[in-house]
């Protein structure tokens, strides 16, 4: 901890405006870029319906206003509509973040009645072949059906497509698909390299030419479509020279609750060593958010080292991502090495350099997010 004569102030925390409820790590898909932890298989003891309702009440009382139902695949929880109903009654804006699998017409109707505000449906690609390959399922046709149902029931719909080397060249077809499905928003989410995506990074990281081409296509569609479909396309941070303002700062607006009740400042933070994350089974959301050592560990600026500590941009990007700093440099308090000012920036530029080659030279074959592979990840 910094001394009291530190020139850098620790900012007072505001409320956790964004609550992400990762209801389960169970999922019928096996996506190669899944953001769930590699050892998800060891999390078996999911929170009960009553636990979740209590978390929603406590978070709402603190000022949380956006609630995402996520996972894993949240549709595998039989109590989803009940949880949505509770959240809606509390005044949350409720978002379902789903692969579409398990979302039949009866459940769409039930969720509408419970007050669900919005559905985000993920596609892995605009083609059946690549969608089904990347998720290792046969789900493309089902997803199309679900997307039509979502619109038929009057929900605003976000289509989310995670982009990588393997599908980014289809970005025009992906936009056409979003138009055909009447999506309100299209999130062209460049892969972020955590969890399974980090394991598969050499297979997934696109080349610079691929990204520049995708950006051109997106901008051309934006100019043509005006505001018809709002498109989000953020250049992957490996290709930026400054880090992303990850989570808008640690413990700033975002609170994620894992299936087993672990409270995290982001879904990936579970990997960080030296922190004991609190559990909603043992502490209130208020205690967790404001008082727990884990949520205060990287809050504000007093934890920063150089070059962040004296950087004029520290208030804009908060030193980037703690998980990325840990994964690539071994120290979570280091500057995110995506930053060109980081002395360890070469970790990123080396990976980017490898990605310019026409053929992937990866140390291992593509690993799919499967229970068996999770166990292997555990024992290795």
């Amino acid at each position, binding site marked *: 901890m910094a001394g009291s004569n530190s020139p850098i102030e620790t900012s007072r925390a505001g*409320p956790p*405006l*964004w609550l992400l409820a990762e209801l389960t790590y169970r999922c019928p898909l096996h996506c190669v870029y899944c*953001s769930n932890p590699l050892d998800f298989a060891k999390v078996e003891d999911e929170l009960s319906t009553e636990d979740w309702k209590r978390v929603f009440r406590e978070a709402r009382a*603190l*000022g949380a*206003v*956006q609630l*995402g139902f996520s996972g894993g695949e949240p549709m595998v929880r039989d109590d989803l509509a009940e949880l949505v109903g509770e959240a809606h009654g509390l*005044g949350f*804006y409720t*978002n379902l973040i789903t692969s579409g699998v398990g979302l039949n017409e009866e459940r769409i109707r039930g969720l509408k009645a419970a007050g669900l*505000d*919005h559905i*985000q449906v993920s596609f892995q690609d605009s083609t059946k072949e690549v969608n089904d390959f990347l998720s290792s399922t046969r789900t493309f046709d089902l997803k199309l059906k679900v997307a039509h149902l979502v619109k038929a029931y*009057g929900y*605003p719909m*976000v289509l989310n497509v995670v982009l990588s080397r393997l599908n980014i060249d289809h970005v025009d077809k992906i936009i056409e698909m979003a138009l055909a499905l009447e999506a*309100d*928003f299209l999130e062209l989410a460049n892969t*972020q390299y*955590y969890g399974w995506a980090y394991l598969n990074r050499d297979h997934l990281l696109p080349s610079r030419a691929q990204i520049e081409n995708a950006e051109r296509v997106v901008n051309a569609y934006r100019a043509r479509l005006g*505001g018809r479909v*709002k498109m*989000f396309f*953020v250049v992957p941070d490996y290709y930026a020279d400054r880090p*992303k*303002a*990850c*989570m*808008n700062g640690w413990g700033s*607006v*975002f609170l994620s609750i894992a299936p087993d009740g672990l409270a995290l400042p*982001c*879904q*990936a*933070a579970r990997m960080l060593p030296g922190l004991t994350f609190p559990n909603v089974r043992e502490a209130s959301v208020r205690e967790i958010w404001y008082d727990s050592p884990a949520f205060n560990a990287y809050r504000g600026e007093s934890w920063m080292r150089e070059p962040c500590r004296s950087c004029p941009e520290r208030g804009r990007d908060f030193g980037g*991502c703690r*998980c*990325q700093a840990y994964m690539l440099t071994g120290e979570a308090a280091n500057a995110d090495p995506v930053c060109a000012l980081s002395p360890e920036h070469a970790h990123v530029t080396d990976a980017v350099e490898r990605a310019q080659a026409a053929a992937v030279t990866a140390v291992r074959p593509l690993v799919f997010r499967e229970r068996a592979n999770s166990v292997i990840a555990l024992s290795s």
Partner: protein
Amino acid sequence: MRSRSRILTTQFRLRRNELGDITAGAQPRLRPMYRLQWEEAQQAWVLLYPEGMVRLNTPAAEILKRCNGTTKVGMLVADLEQTFSATGLQSDVDEFLSEAARRGWIEFAD
């Protein structure tokens, strides 16, 4: 790990711009995916939409509260001027509604 850039915590401010004219008879309403709500913790009106939030300042909130799809812009202005004992709000309201329409927050009932 994700940058949830769609939480906008900056206040919306009225600003001059040159967008299409809004007639006094137009009836603005919030688009269905948007929800206007008072947030006690923030002591502010907010506009909520899929995975996002805009914190509104008082003039923006007072205008949007009156966008119910039946109140005509002329009436809306008159109501604001009466409520806040002000005059000459027409051009500010027009500018705000143009900007709100451009951002996709509101639409006009025919």
